[in-house]
Structure formats: C-alpha cells, structure tokens
C-alpha cells in the first residue's frame, strides 16, 4: 500500500519529539566548559614539558591538576562525540553505514575518556 498522507499530516497532533535540541544545547554547554579547561590543559602541558617521569607523575597526580584533567577529558570527549556525529550524519547517508559509524563514534569517545581517566586515577591513587 502506498502511503498517501504527507509527512506533515502523519506527525500532526503527536506533539514535539521533545529531545530535538538536546544535542545543540549539550554542544554549547561543553563548548563553554571547554574554553577555560583547554586553557588550563595548555598550561599543564607547558608545566610538564621536558620533565622526567618522576616529576611528570608527581604533577599529574596533584589533586588540582588531576581534577582539572578529569573535567577536561570528560568535557572534550562528550563534545567531540556530538561533533563527530554531526559530521557523520552530514556525509554518510546509507542507513547501515551511518548507524555503524555512529556506534563506533560512541565507542571511540567512551574508550578515550575511560582510558585517559583511568590513567589519571592510577597516577593519583598509585599501584
């Protein structure tokens, strides 16, 4: 059977999808957070340049540096996951490939976030 109703007629009266602007908003929220966190990250990297392992370990394990690094890691990986999803949705139109890439995108962002956070925790709590 051919669907004769227009797309507009089919959605009328169902209300909004409710989450339409969530990505837009989260992208801005993390963008604002990224500005001071990126400046802090650059300063941390500058402070670590040319240090030996023991000194680098000590600096990264200090509470303030570790907390800023964790916030930075969380904010940028969330931000880049949304950003890459937009890129995928813009250029990949084949449904299966698009879904696969969006899943891989999430796996990558979560893996980078957890691996980096794990390293910070290990530096902070030892063993």
């Amino acid at each position, binding site marked *: 059977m051919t669907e004769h109703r227009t797309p507009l007629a089919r959605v009328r009266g169902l209300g909004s999808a409710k989450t339409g602007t969530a990505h837009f908003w989260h992208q801005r929220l993390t963008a604002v957070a990224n500005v001071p966190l990126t400046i802090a990250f650059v300063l941390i990297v500058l402070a670590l340049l040319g240090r030996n*392992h023991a000194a680098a370990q000590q600096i990264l394990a200090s509470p303030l540096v570790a907390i800023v690094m964790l916030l930075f890691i969380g904010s940028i990986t969330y931000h880049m996951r949304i950003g*890459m999803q937009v890129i995928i949705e813009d250029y990949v139109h084949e449904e299966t490939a698009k879904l696969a890439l969006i899943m891989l995108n999430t796996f990558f962002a979560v893996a980078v976030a957890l*691996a980096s956070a794990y*390293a910070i925790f290990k*530096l902070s709590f030892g063993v």
Partner: protein
Amino acid sequence: MAGSKAPTRPLSPHMQIYRWPLPMAMSILHRITGAGLYVGTLLMAWWLIATASGPNAYATFGAFINSWIGQLILFGYTWALLHHMLGGIRHLIWDTGHGFSQSEREWLSLATAVGSISLTVLLWVISYLSIGGGQ
C-alpha cells in the same frame, strides 16, 4: 538548449571555483580542526597512559613526541586546538545573535585566523625557551 548561446550571467559556481570568502574558509577549517582534534585525543590518551605505566613507557612516548614527526604533529595539534577554541568562541558570540554584520563577520574570521596562528607560534617560542631547545 543545444545550439543556444552560452548565458553571460554567472552560473552558480561550485566550491572549487569559488573565491573563498574568509568566513567560509574559517567555517570549513572549524570542522577540519574538530576532526583533527578528535584523532588527536589518542595522543593525549597515550601520553597519560604512558605516564601512568612507568618510566619505560614514558620514555617511549617522549622519544616519539620529540622526533621531528612528533613535533610536527604536536605543532599541528596546538594550532588545531587554538583555532577550534577561537572559532568556537566566535560561534558562541553568534549564538547570542551578535556579530552578523558584514564587517563584524570579516573581523571575527580574521581574528580567528590571526589569533590562532600567532598564539601557536607564541606558545612554541615560550616552550622552546623554557626548556632550552626542544629537550
């Protein structure tokens, strides 16, 4: 259409024959630097994991990042990070509904380009001076 005279009016040009206006170039660079930073997080993760793993892994990372290819990647990463940050601030200004006039668009785009390049050079000059020539 065959045999008819070629129209003298401009036909909608495609990207590769467009004279790139600066805001357009900055918009495209914003996406490219964003994608570059995405891949670049692997470098950050490697650095943190290497530091957490011990002196040997840290030395391996150090050997890579101090090689010419490592320095080139890090220089590109620095520029991409600053360009994406300044471009992002420009977008946040636009989100408030300001900065859309012709002169403001040009000025903001120029500030993104000039700002990111000069800040990158400045940071690298500072880092080379502070550690005395790359080590």
